[in-house]
């Protein structure tokens, strides 16, 4: 085993440096900008793949820089980091392609791609953080980098959504900061340890429970756990690529990733169980799952429906973390990837409908399947996956969650999964049915791309097809050695090692 | 009067000065009140230099008073200049506007 220092830094720099370069690129230099961003995304993905191979063969990647008294900036790549960073790096490449086409001809593109890259850098920092302080630093940096994207359009509505976003996330960040400072004052450096860093310390249980609650609230804001989810539907005012990458992957996943880290690598499963904090977390997650689905059912605006669906689906990951036992944990972790693949597909498709036909509402989707068959095929696969229909990825997640819950005797979780599945079906199936089997009544609201070649521009079409296929493959090939499921099992094998 | 008497008078003057600065409205009165406060403080410093009959006075407080006087005079002068300037501005508002145009 060797320790390689530069790779985690390189992974972050691969998007940070091009991100900063974007800002100083003239607005009219489209070709250069496209080349720069795609090259950076490819480079980053390559570096991540190298790291992925290294970690699976036991290499240690770690950088440690002194930043504060008794608190270092630590980047450390472990299996869990890689799960998240691989997801974000792959989807960044696809989203970059998508964004190039989606934003074609709009203003402020240098700014957009600049902050977009900064977001991906912050996400990589969160994934690779080796202690709680580093995680917190990048978590706050992510807030700062996403704000400009939320308000990108500059309208009153966008600015209001931005204010709301900041009110939620910065408050959450401050709660988190206090929790981290408090915990640090009790136990010193907060480096993540598989099995829990608090195992080695004796601390008053009441304090630990309060700190746990603060940490979950802090991370729960970005993870959009009910009732901390208010910002997410409003943030849908952002352009589609932002909704896709940030609200399906980067921001909400950063929150839930933080919760996973806290439960497994800070408190540790044994301590968390003996403190009795996981039960309330599971209830918190379950309420979110059901409430998000109910609200999704009430939305007519497609992106809002997807947003509430995100609220619901991300809570599966928290649920899998809170329900003890390795099998449910696998279900939660693998859903981190599966939900990302499926939800980004849905957002890409929603963006295509809006961009090509001006469709923003579910009620306008009648017959759109015949007009845009490829887009709607991807949409249908992802929607079925969300419901949990085999053999798509979402089924694997739900299967493991249910199995895990039963194996530890938490039968009520099955009830939550059942209700959620019914609700998922209730808000996705009519959409899919209308798209394929109903006749369009009116002309499309605003048709902008001519039909002479394919249904829409290829750079808009390719990303959802790829992610849709990936969601299908992740389910079909779940037993394979390169699947997200296999990696989740690899992680769990480390966390549950006695 | 003994040294202590001067100290007491100085403190009374200082208190009157502070009262004046806080209560009086016109800037000129405030400036005068500050000078009374200053006189009080300097009187205290002059008085405390007395080390008793037959002994040389302590040079340090006297050095302080000299420096303090210079500072107080400069500040008062600056205050008066500023007051004149602001009165000028108020007397001739039209000049302001013409100046603004010149800037634009």
């Amino acid at each position, binding site marked *: 085993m060797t320790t390689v220092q530069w790779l985690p830094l390189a992974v972050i720099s691969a998007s940070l440096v091009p991100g900063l370069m974007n*800002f100083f690129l003239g607005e009219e230099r489209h070709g250069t900008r496209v080349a720069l961003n795609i090259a950076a995304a490819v480079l980053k993905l390559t570096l991540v793949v190298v790291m992925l191979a290294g970690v699976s063969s036991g290499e240690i990647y770690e950088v440690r820089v*002194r*930043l*504060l*008294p008794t608190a270092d900036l630590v980047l450390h790549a472990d299996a869990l980091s890689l799960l998240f960073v691989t997801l974000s790096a792959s989807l960044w490449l696809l989203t970059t392609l998508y964004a190039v086409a989606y934003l074609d001809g709009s203003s402020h593109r*240098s*700014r957009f791609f600049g902050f977009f890259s900064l977001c991906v850098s912050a996400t990589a920092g969160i994934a690779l953080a080796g202690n709680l302080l580093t995680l*917190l*630093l990048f978590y*706050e*940096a992510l*807030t700062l980098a996403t*704000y*400009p994207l939320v*308000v990108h*359009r*500059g*309208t009153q509505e*966008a*600015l209001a959504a*931005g*204010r709301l976003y*900041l009110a939620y996330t*910065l408050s959450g960040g*401050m*709660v988190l*900061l*206090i929790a981290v*400072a408090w915990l*640090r*004052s009790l136990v010193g450096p907060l480096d993540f340890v598989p099995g829990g860093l608090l195992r080695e310390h004796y601390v008053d249980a009441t304090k630990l429970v309060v700190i746990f609650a603060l940490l979950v609230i802090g991370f729960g804001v970005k993870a959009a756990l009910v009732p901390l989810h208010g910002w997410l539907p409003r943030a849908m005012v952002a352009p589609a690529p932002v909704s896709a990458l940030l609200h399906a992957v980067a921001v909400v996943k950063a929150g839930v990733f933080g919760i996973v880290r806290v439960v497994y690598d800070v408190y540790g499963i044994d301590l968390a169980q003996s403190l009795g904090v996981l039960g309330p977390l599971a209830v918190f997650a379950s309420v979110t799952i059901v409430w998000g689905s109910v609200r999704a059912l009430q939305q007519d605006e497609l992106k809002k429906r997807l947003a509430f669906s995100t609220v619901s689906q991300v809570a599966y990951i928290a649920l899998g973390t809170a329900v003890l036992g390795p099998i449910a944990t696998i279900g939660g972790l693998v859903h981190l990837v599966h939900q990302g693949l499926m939800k980004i597909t849905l957002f890409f498709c929603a963006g295509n409908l809006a961009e090509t036909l001006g469709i923003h509402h579910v009620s306008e989707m009648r017959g759109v399947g015949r007009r845009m068959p490829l887009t709607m095929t991807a949409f249908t696969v992802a929607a079925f996956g969300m419901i949990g229909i085999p053999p798509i990825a979402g089924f694997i997640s739900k299967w493991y969650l249910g199995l895990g819950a039963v194996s530890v005797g938490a039968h009520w979780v099955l009830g939550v999964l059942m209700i959620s599945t019914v609700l998922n079906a209730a808000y996705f199936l009519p959409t899919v049915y209308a798209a394929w089997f109903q006749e369009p009544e009116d002309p499309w609201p605003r048709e902008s791309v001519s039909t002479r070649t394919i249904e829409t521009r290829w750079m808009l079409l390719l990303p959802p097809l790829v992610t849709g296929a990936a969601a299908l493959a992740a389910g079909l090939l779940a037993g394979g050695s390169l699947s997200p499921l296999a990696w989740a099992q690899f992680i769990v094998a480390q966390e549950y090692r006695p | 009067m003994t040294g202590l008497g001067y100290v007491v008078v100085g403190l009374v003057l*200082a208190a009157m000065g*502070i009262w004046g*600065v806080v209560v009086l409205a016109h*800037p000129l009165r405030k400036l005068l009140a*500050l000078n009374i*406060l*200053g006189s009080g*403080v300097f009187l*205290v*410093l002059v008085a*405390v230099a007395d080390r008793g009959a037959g002994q040389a006075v302590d040079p*340090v*407080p006297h*050095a*302080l008073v000299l*420096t*303090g006087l210079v*500072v*107080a005079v*400069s*500040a008062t002068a600056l*205050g008066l200049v*500023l007051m004149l*300037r*602001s009165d000028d*501005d108020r007397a001739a508002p039209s000049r*302001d506007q013409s100046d603004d145009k010149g*800037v*634009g």
Partner: protein
Amino acid sequence: MPLGIDDALPFAVVLPAVAAVAAVVMPHWGRAVGLVGGLMTAAAVVVIAFGNRVGGPIRYALGGWPAPLGIELAADGLAVVMLALVATVMLTAGVYALRYFDHDGGAEPALFWPLALLLWTGLNALALSADAFNVYVTLEVVSLAGVGLCALGGRGEAIVAALRYLLAGMLASLLYLLGVALLYVEHGTLDIATLAQVAVTGAAGFVAVPCILAGLALKAALFPLHFWLPAAHANANAPVSALLSALVVKAALYLVLRWWLAGLGMGLGPILVQLLGALGAAAVLWGSVQALVAARLKLSVAYSTVAQMGYLFLLFPLAANPTTASTAWAGIVYLVVAHGLAKAALFLASGSVLRAHGHDRLGELAGLLPRSPITKFAIGLSGVSLIGLPFSGGFVGKWLLLNAAIVSGQWWWVALIFAGSLLAAAYVFRIVALLFAQSESPIDVAPQHSPMLMELPALGLALAAVGLGFAYPALESTLALPDMLGDHAR
């Protein structure tokens, strides 16, 4: 006789003074004199910082006369930090001023360079002085130069604001002097290090200590004695606003720190200590709310100074507990520097906005702010540091204060930092949102481009404020409390 490193101490005071005189004598050469004098002063500061780093605190007796009649200069860690902050902000604001005054259709006002150099002289002398009376004189030099700069080339409101500033400053100085005089009566010395330890023990201290604290609080604009600050800082020319907000209020605070460092804080007792903290808390809340509702950009930035100065008075309660004293101390010094850099950057950037639009009414700026990303970044990054978000110097300072509050069990200050950060975020993002807002008026009133020499200084300072977030390990030894205490207590 070869010059030693300790000879740099008088140079740091004499060079800007000589340059100030030269700038008065040769008004047409003001810029050249200002820049050359500034660079030479900065060089002296670099030598002092180097000497301090290598050999620890440096002392120098002017003309070989010992204290109390002679003047002794001393450079410890705190002094070096102050000297470096002053030099950085002075130089960048000076470069900025080269083009800022161009817009008025001419050169900078004749007295700009002499007054700025005089201010620099006063600040350096203040940083290096160790006795209570010299400090009074230097504080007066700083105040008078500050008032002069504030009134410079201004009309109407600026003059009235400068006058109020002057009156408040005079009152503060005389209160301070009265306190020092009373202490001298009782203890017969003017050495801060000696006085601070015995001040609260004697009968005179009963009046003297409140006089000294009130005088310094008035100059440092601690709530509710801040009334003079917003108008003075908001109405001055932008480079002057930067100097006033980043440096001049810090001069008074520097003295507060000196007295505290010498031992005053330990004797104040728990009630007074918490009271000072409470005033700081009121400043944080009141200043932030006023910044949030201010109608003008520069007024908002000025109120932010009132708020940020409030944090610095948390030193008293947070450092009262011996276990957290060094953490709180490092946090406060960090905030002094981070705020100085960020606030100067924000005022310089605001000046660019003001110049490009001809006004700074926040309601009419949406979408029209400078197109160049440089000024936008300067505003954004300095805002990040003011809020205290990572990665920035402001974050490090806030983290240290938060740790001190938690470890000493003073949870009410944790709550204050929580509320203060969110309020700061609210007023900063109120400005930042304008950078992203679409223009509401389609009329073609595109702002003028600002010259690079105005944009780059603001960005440079903002980057420095952010970079400070990574500098803790390098500055740790400079900020270490025990050494300073040991040294000043002799």
